[in-house]
């Protein structure tokens, strides 16, 4: 357990030193702040646009960090051959993979928390500068705590993407790992289309295969409640728990898979 914590701490320290991570979070915060300008271009809906942009920025930047940093966790160590010095210590490959994963998840969650704080600061300013008569048109209050549900599920999604990135990076090249991770993200959001493919195509086999893919792949659209919270629609705790539970199972599966593949890998 201590070895895992040390490796996770190392990943976290590396990510703090890494200026790209800072840059991305800063970019996301600037995007949220600039949403004020974007909202001026349209007929009202300023609060909706600010919320949409904030949630999309947090999700998109998080996806980028989870994918690219997640892939680098194992491959960089192998390429630099620094893995030999790590594994020469009393650290198993299982501890190495789990530690790396937890370190990046910790970084992502802290980044996400910073983005949440910036997001609410922007909305607080909007709330402060908007006359109360205009607020009656809002579907949900600017500082609606319901939006934390969307951020929580973005966090779960990023945890899953990180696990996916690590899984692919244990056996394929960095480029292919990026492509495969993005493919999982896209397919994960196509759940309903895959399930109902039989209503679009005439083939007998394709819908069967698609349905199989639908059940094997994680359903990421279940984690997407961004639109619902922005419109002030209810998001049930049960559906959140079910979606999170399902994702945790996928994360566990991917990590076990990563450990199995990485343990059998010849690093010479």
């Amino acid at each position, binding site marked *: 357990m201590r070895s895992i914590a040390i490796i996770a701490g190392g990943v976290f320290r590396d990510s703090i030193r890494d200026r790209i991570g800072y840059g991305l979070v800063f970019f996301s915060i600037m995007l949220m702040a600039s949403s004020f300008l*974007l909202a001026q*271009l*349209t*007929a*009202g*809906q300023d609060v*909706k*646009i600010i919320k*949409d*942009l904030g*949630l*999309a920025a947090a*999700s*998109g930047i998080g996806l980028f960090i989870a994918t690219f940093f997640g892939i680098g966790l194992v491959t960089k160590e192998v390429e630099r051959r620094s893995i030999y010095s790590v594994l020469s210590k009393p650290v198993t490959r299982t501890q190495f993979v789990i530690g790396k994963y937890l370190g990046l998840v910790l970084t992502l969650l802290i980044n996400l928390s910073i983005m949440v704080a910036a997001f609410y600061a922007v909305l607080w300013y909007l709330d402060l500068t908007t006359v109360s008569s*205009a607020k*009656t*048109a809002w*579907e949900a209050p600017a500082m609606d705590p319901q939006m934390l549900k969307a951020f929580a599920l973005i966090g779960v999604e990023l945890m899953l993407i990180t696990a996916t990135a690590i899984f692919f990076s244990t056996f394929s090249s960095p480029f292919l790992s990026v492509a495969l991770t993005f493919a999982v*993200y*896209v397919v994960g*959001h*196509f759940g309903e*289309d895959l399930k109902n493919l039989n209503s679009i195509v005439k083939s007998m086999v394709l819908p069967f295969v698609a349905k199989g893919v639908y059940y094997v792949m994680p359903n*990421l*659209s279940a984690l*997407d409640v*961004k*639109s619902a919270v*922005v*419109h002030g*629609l209810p998001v049930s705790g049960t559906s959140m728990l079910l979606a999170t539970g399902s994702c945790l199972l996928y994360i566990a599966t991917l990590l076990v898979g990563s450990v199995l593949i990485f343990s059998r890998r010849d690093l010479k």
Partner: protein
Amino acid sequence: MGTKPVKHSGFLWVALVVLLVSATGSQVVLEGKLQRPALLPGVQWVQSPGLMRRVAVGFNAIWADIYWIRAVQYYGDTKLSVDGKKNYDQLYPLLDITTSLDPYFSIAYRFGSILLSEGYPNGPGQADQAITLLEKGIRETPNRWQYYHDAGFVKYWWTRDAQAAADWFLKGAKLPGAPNWLEPLAATVLAEHGEREASRELWVQLAATAEHDWIRKAAERGLKQLDAEAHIEILEGLAQKFYDTYGRFPNGWGDLTGIKWLRRIPVDPAGQFYVLDPVTGTVNVSPRSPLYPLRSRTR
């Protein structure tokens, strides 16, 4: 040997400033001298709402915002263009994609239907598309009485179908949370000789229930247009009286102010002079007026 930091002389700093000033200067020189390519008409690469919804993977709401901004900008650009043949063809596809990406985008249905039904040249004058858009909103959120109200409004104001308008109002009145004035509104639009009163009532209610300033301003403009129509009725009556007295229509407002039938040259509620046609004796708002064109004059 290149591993230690080097302190550059002041020369490089001066060079940096000079180069920056020169580069900025070159931009000023270039400005206006470059041949600008002709503006191409806007092209909407993705026409299918279904395809756009799939392409957006997880970022549907932000794409809906982008398409809504595009729709509003497209409408505004087209309306303000000096082109004699204003083309609003892309407005409905843009609104269709917006509402497919975010099916709960209330303002896109409500304000979109106002934009679509607005008479040419201020809008495409596509009342049927406005109804289609509102019907789509009703399919997504069946309990929003506002969509029924807006559909009734479009039917009454733009297609002059009082029966269809009343049907929409009655359907909306049955929904939970619908205001108590919606059902009487159906009776008002069906009442004979009550057209202007009904129209006024519709605009007043639209302004009162507007969720946004833009809709409220559109309603206020509608009310001013009704006032202008009432003025025009009186002014045309005066022109006809002039004809009966002098055997010709007045050449201008001066003829009427000269004989004290009018105290001053009449202006519409937006502050622009009314236009009098000396041949037919008809009166209209000026094409420069924000109230132009009046619905009664475009029939």
